[in-house]
């Protein structure tokens, strides 16, 4: 008797992932998550807010598990965050910060049909970059370094702070559809704002910024690269994360 067995679906390649904190003694509030189903996410927790590291971690884990961003999805994420704390037992300062809310960006990427469609969701100031070799084909949500501001609109655990989502058309304003098709040497990069600002401000420099990132293959190489760029004053001192699918 022969039993027909469905051929296993090929697993998607995992991107390289590196992340270092703003300072050696500070907590890294960036988070990233990669699934073998071709869904990746990164999030930059805003240090101005209460336990943004946990909020960022919840966002990336939930996105890679269920990459359909809706208001119900966001409400479920907020509910998960709120369960982490007993509000009544917090000190008054913590309670005030908890009520004010935790803020974080969310950059999610879905590879559909082996890269024929790449769907990028971006809320906040984390940056996705589509490359062909060293050439930058597209960036999202920003295309110029000047678009990085001190107060990006971020996802918040306080629902009142998410009203900006009512004014956007999610499928158009928050999502970019890209493809690897037709590219000779396609690559996709996702990064938090310090690196995104660096990349767009160095876009026309020589050597090309993409070629510099391409050489980074280990966490220690990434740490050395970031420290050198910070020391040269070209990169903001902030938690810095890179996901790179070369």
């Amino acid at each position, binding site marked *: 008797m022969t039993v027909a067995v469905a051929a296993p679906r090929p697993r998607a390649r995992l991107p390289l992932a590196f992340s270092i904190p703003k300072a050696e003694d*500070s*907590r890294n*509030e960036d988070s990233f998550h990669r699934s073998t189903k071709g869904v990746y996410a990164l999030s930059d*927790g805003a*240090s*101005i*807010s*209460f*336990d*943004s*590291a946990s909020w960022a971690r919840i966002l990336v884990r939930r996105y890679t598990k269920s990459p359909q961003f809706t208001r119900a999805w966001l*409400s479920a994420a*907020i509910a998960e965050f709120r369960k982490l704390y007993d509000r*009544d037992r917090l*000190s*008054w*300062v*913590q*309670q*005030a*910060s908890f*009520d*004010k809310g935790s803020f974080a960006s969310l950059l999610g990427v879905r590879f559909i049909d082996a890269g024929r469609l790449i769907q990028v969701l971006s809320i906040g100031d984390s940056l996705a970059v589509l490359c062909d070799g060293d050439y930058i084909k597209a960036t999202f949500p920003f295309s110029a370094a000047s678009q990085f501001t*001190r107060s990006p609109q971020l996802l918040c655990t*306080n*629902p*009142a702070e*998410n009203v900006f989502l009512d004014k956007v058309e999610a499928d158009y304003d928050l999502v970019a559809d890209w493809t690897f098709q037709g590219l000779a040497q396609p690559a996709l990069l996702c990064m938090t704002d310090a690196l995104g600002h660096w990349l767009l401000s160095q876009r026309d420099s020589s050597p090309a910024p993409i070629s510099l990132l391409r050489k980074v293959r280990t966490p220690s190489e990434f740490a050395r690269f970031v420290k050198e760029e910070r020391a040269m004053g070209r990169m903001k001192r902030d938690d810095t994360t890179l996901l790179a699918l070369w």
Partner: protein
Amino acid sequence: MPYQAEISRDNPTCFLFVIDQSGSMDEITETGRSKADFVADVLNKTLYTLVTSCSKSDGVRNYFDVGVIAYGGAEVAGGFGGALAGGIIHPINAIGEHALRVEERKKKVDDGAGGIIELKTKFPVWFDPKSAGGTPMRAALGKTMETVGGWCEAHRSSYPPTILHVTDGQSTDGAPEDVADGVRQIATKDGPALLFNLHITTGGGLETAFPTNEAELADEYSRMLFRMSSPLPAHLAKLAGDKGYAMGDGSRGFIFNGDPQCIVDFFEIGTRPKLVADR
């Protein structure tokens, strides 16, 4: 250009509240509460906002030093009690840790689904209302000069101190104008200290907010308070304009015959820092 220094933990700024606690502060305002009670509540809410604005994921960062001088009767003294009673100015994290007490209040918040819910919320109290005796404004501003002078000596590179003086009456220990001039001459490398004056009333009368010229004012007392007040730096003038106050070139940080909303606005405008670094 003055008032450009970034406010950071290495270079904090200072807010000093100088509060009239004379006997007339017990008059009842249109809110149904005494002036002293209302001012105390606004001051507590301002301190709450200052502490929470410095609260980051790693705790309360010392961007601000904050002090209170209270005066009334024969007394001019630090306005904090409990663990903070030993000094006039304290770093903001010490203020966050040492409220006199923490009360439970109710506040209405958005439930995220289009509705409003009432939440029990902890509310710290640092400052209780008091009202007794005369108005030793001259002595209070003398204490202010001494306090601010010491702070500036220790913080030469910082954004200069902001002093918010709240009173409802005329000085009973002599003219305070020359002492106020002295306060405004104390400076850091980033500019002279800012002295803003709020006169509050229960009697109605013409309210004057952020005037540009003393000729706009009705009597010598209000003109003196105008002269005692610093011009608003551009970023604070913009904030006042955004709140609907008519602003002009050289608008001073001065409100005369201010109603309860003016009190709230005065504290909010006066304590809004321009820049906070390393956020």
